């Protein structure tokens, strides 16, 4: 990586957004990068809008503050598009990854993204339900983000999900999440 990549996640409490940021940071680490993953701290309330951040760089990361100018914005819950300014501060060539069943062109209009910015959608909730039976969009989104950021390979993301989930969950849940990461990687589409 030549330059620092800054990512902002928008999600709701309980969706696994913070975990997704952690898993992604861990996957980037295996590529030899410096990484950060941290949520915006506040009262942790299920369903409340929250933000989390990643920084990834080949150089030491000294900055210890929220990301203001994200290069990638991941929106784990499309209902946030109505209430939260998710494009705030996004750089001119930023990419947005939105968890939605809608066509990326429709989401692009809703976001009022600049022509230089890219908009992607992935139906992460559907993938999650099909893969492991719960509406937790984090694993598919890690897959989509791995593809769009090109910082980590699909295999690195898979290895890391295996590692982070391996301690806590049954093989069935792990396999479901691995499949979800793979599908998130493959099914993300640009509009």
């Amino acid at each position, binding site marked *: 990586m030549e330059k620092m990549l800054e990512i902002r996640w928008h999600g709701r409490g309980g969706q696994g957004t913070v975990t997704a940021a952690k898993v992604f*940071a861990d996957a980037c680490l295996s590529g030899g990068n410096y990484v950060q993953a941290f949520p915006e*701290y506040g009262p942790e309330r299920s369903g409340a809008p929250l933000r989390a951040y990643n920084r990834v760089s080949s150089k030491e990361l000294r*900055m210890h*503050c929220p990301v203001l100018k994200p290069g990638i914005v991941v929106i784990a819950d499309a209902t946030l598009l109505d209430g939260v300014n998710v494009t705030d501060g996004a750089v001119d060539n930023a990419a947005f990854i939105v968890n939605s069943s809608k066509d990326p062109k429709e989401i692009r209009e809703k976001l009022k993204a600049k022509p230089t910015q890219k908009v992607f959608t992935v139906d992460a909730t559907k993938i999650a339900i099909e893969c492991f039976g719960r509406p937790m969009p984090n694993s598919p989104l890690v897959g989509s983000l791995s593809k769009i950021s090109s910082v980590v390979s699909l295999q690195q993301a898979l290895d890391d999900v295996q590692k982070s989930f391996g301690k806590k969950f049954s093989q069935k849940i792990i396999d479901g999440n691995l499949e979800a990461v793979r599908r998130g990687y493959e099914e993300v589409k640009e509009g």
Partner: protein
Amino acid sequence: MGKVVAVTGNEAVAEALRQVNPDVCAAYPITPQTDMMQRFGSFVNNGKVKTEIILTESEHSSMSACVGASAAGGRVITATSSQGLALMFEILFIASGTRLPIIMPVVNRALSAPLNIHGDHSDAMGARDAGWIQLWSENTQEAYDNTIQAFRIAEHPDIRLPAMVCLDGFIISHSIERIEYLDDNEVSNFVGEYKPVNPMLDIEHPVSYGPLILPDYYMEFRKAHDAVMSKVSKVVLDVAKDFEKISGRKYGLFETYRLEDADIGIVILNSAAGTTKDVIDEFREKGIKAGLLKPRLYRPFPYKEIGEALKHLKAVCVLDRADAFGASHGPLYIDIASSLYPYEKRPILINKIYGLGGRDYMPGHAELVLNELVEIAKTGKINVVKEYIGVRE
């Protein structure tokens, strides 16, 4: 060569404590305690350490239990944060006055009221004159490294004082960063076996701890404590040299960043120093000679060395993440001003209070301060000496 991991500050410090494998840990297990002690508790429960853990009903009790265990002859740890440190206040002086080398990571968080447990230095600043050693840490790596070094410093036969290792609440304690762990055997060899001095459990040599000292001798104890404090700097540097041999990472009494040829400078503690360094690089690219000084050993404060390092500057801003109420200046400012007072030619000094109760410190704040310093260096005029920044009017 140890392992590279992405972990939170709390995980990293808990890992350092596991590697040291202390005899006793007495901790209060509920907020404002952080998950650092929860993680260490898992090591105890899973048999990863031989530590006996005592979960107390308050921080006052946890520090009291630490005093007892340390006087008994054990290597003792605890951890706390915010109100917890405030509640320990009475016993902090007993630990230091009794010369017990207890190690205590402090996750720096705000004090009530109003109730707030976000990043802020008010807790540790309130305890800065309690006779403890204080090491402050910019990031997760430094918090881990300082924790390991703290044992060698505190337990050094010339010192025998308790030590706090400070790290920023949430910003470091709960955020994930890449760090390098040392191998278990490297850490245990580095800290060595604990050698108690006059342990109470040595029944062949009975000793008394905590006796009444009347005016005829109390002051001599205080003078001795002061004299010990003056030896800490040398030990900190010696330990840092040894630590560099196993880690490759250099530590001093403080860190300077692009300061040697600087005209203007910022003095700042902990995580905000990192953010400031990035902004200093931007100013340097514009041809502005800016630099930074970040204290590491905050107690005892290396007045002489810091004064020497700052005296050539034209203008300096000290940023405090705590206020010392009294319509005066922040605690770090007061120390920096003292360190510069002996010099006839010294920089113009200003003070900003920032980041209280978890308020974000952004690059824009550092830019604002550096721009003001550029003006001051040019004109010699100060607008206002002390000011809150990043705050609503």
